[in-house]
């Protein structure tokens, strides 16, 4: 265990998380969640599943996860590597609305934050948009238009990788 001033050992905790995810296997939130390579435990990738009963259902999106050295005291930085049409996710960069980080606690883990992102897909907030083009559809009440656009891009941009 790390020294008292340093806090806990980030890598040890990440290894525990990784072990738990490998053990858990298939789930509703992500296809996989793992370090990009064996050398760097602070750089992870994941494939998020679209939440059921939403226009995003059936979608798959790649996520890039950067973990700070003082994790879990500080939240990881996550962005989409697959394009997604969502008011709170930037189309070009995949940046996610920062409100996710405001509720960060060290007891949240990576799968927890992926669940939070999945939840964000079902409850978009068009009032603080990172993708104004999509947000304006919602704001104008054109929910049918918004849904069809989301379904189109969910299908069109679906993550095409292979599972291992």
């Amino acid at each position: 265990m790390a020294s008292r001033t340093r806090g806990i050992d980030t890598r040890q905790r990440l290894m525990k998380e990784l072990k738990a995810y490998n053990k858990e296997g298939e789930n509703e939130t992500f296809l996989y969640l793992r370090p990009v390579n064996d050398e760097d435990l602070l750089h992870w990738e994941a494939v998020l599943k679209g939440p059921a009963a939403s226009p995003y259902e059936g979608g798959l999106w790649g996520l890039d996860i950067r973990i700070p050295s003082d994790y879990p005291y500080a939240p990881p930085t996550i962005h989409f590597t697959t394009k997604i049409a969502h008011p709170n996710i930037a189309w070009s960069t995949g940046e996610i609305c920062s409100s996710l980080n405001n509720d960060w606690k060290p007891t949240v883990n990576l799968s927890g934050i992926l669940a939070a992102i999945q939840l964000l897909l079902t409850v978009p907030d068009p009032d603080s948009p990172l993708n104004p083009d999509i947000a304006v559809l919602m704001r104008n009440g054109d929910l049918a238009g918004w849904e069809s656009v989301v379904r189109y891009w969910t299908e069109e941009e679906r993550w095409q990788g292979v599972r291992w």
Partner: protein
Amino acid sequence: MASRSDSVNKVATLWAGSGQASNATSSVAENVAYRFVLDRKVQTISSNGMPDDGLVSGLLFVPTLEPHDPCYDITASSVPPNVTRYEDVSDFGYSLVGLAPWVTAECSLSFLSAAQKVGTHAMIFFQPSDNETDIPPDSNDSRWATNDGDKWRMDNNYPVYAISGPAGATLINDLSWYSNKTPDSNRDEWTEDFALQTETNRLFARIETGKETEGASPSIWSFVLAIAGTVLILSIILMIIYRLVLRKRRVQLQRRVNAGQVDIEALALNQMTVPQEVVNKMPLYTYLEINPPAEPTLPQDNTSANPIDHDSGDKANSLPPNENNHTQDEAGIQKPEAAMIKPGQNESRRSKYRLSHTQTTCAICLDDFVVGSSTVRELPCGHIFDPECIDPFLTRNCCLCPLCKKSVLPAGSYYISVTNEMVNREHHSRRP
């Protein structure tokens, strides 16, 4: 107004032009035998040679026209025969102010040149035909026009004023009483004292005007200034009241924060960290070898134990229930929370109501606690962590429990000063 010297006594007249003097002016209020005040009813029709301070004074006299001048007859009706003349005032050594009726332009020019000849300091005209008692028309009015255009203003190097017709008539009439040429017939009616006075008494004119341009503007400016001043004072008062109200609210909120009655998270105070000495005061003990003294009191202390257990409900519910816990114990405490205790942990029944016993893993490093060897830190909410995990978090990141978000700061130890923004936020958070 003046009592000047032994040779000239206590008699004066005064014009205050353009609102500079009033009866409250000390010189006006002075006790004199004769006083004639024309407040704000003097018109300057030529400011030529006017002193900078706009103050002109001198003994009043009526300029004497040449006997062969036709104006002598024309103006005779407006000028009493025994009026004060230059000879009557020249001996006193004072500056002089001429007074004459404006009957025709030619005669006025004659008066002006006659006054110029004896070195007058100013000239006052009135129009005998004018019955208006208000301020006479200004210098551009056609009534003051002469045939030579404005040449007379240049030729006569002294200021020229105008007063109303009735005022001028009164004054020139009175001037005849102080001329040392009083007819004998009138003397009979006078007391001896007064007769003696008239020997040396002369009318003294004092004309105060502001600068030409300041004629009307000072009142407008003072009006504007008064409004601006009122607005300023009002806004200062309002500002002071507003600040006092804000201060009162801050003090109230500070009191409530210190008393622990405020939802710290709603105030966005979760960025607040915990001082090391407060962290050090939180219980630190070896896992499961805990304070036996707490145990006998707990069964009676359901009220305090229940909320703690409910707070951990989300986590505790995920743990498998343990049938073994529903066993023998004091009556009436077989509550659902007993089911939270994880099986296999060799905890004693006596302390199973403690929330800390439902936790087997440090939620930060995800390490399992080892019975009898792990040292744990218990937060006031009952959640336990490895001290090396929770202490840096509390001292560097946040004062809220990472699991239940309850503040770990004891009431009265909030090291913050309340701001207005916090008052507003708290106010809104209390609204439904």
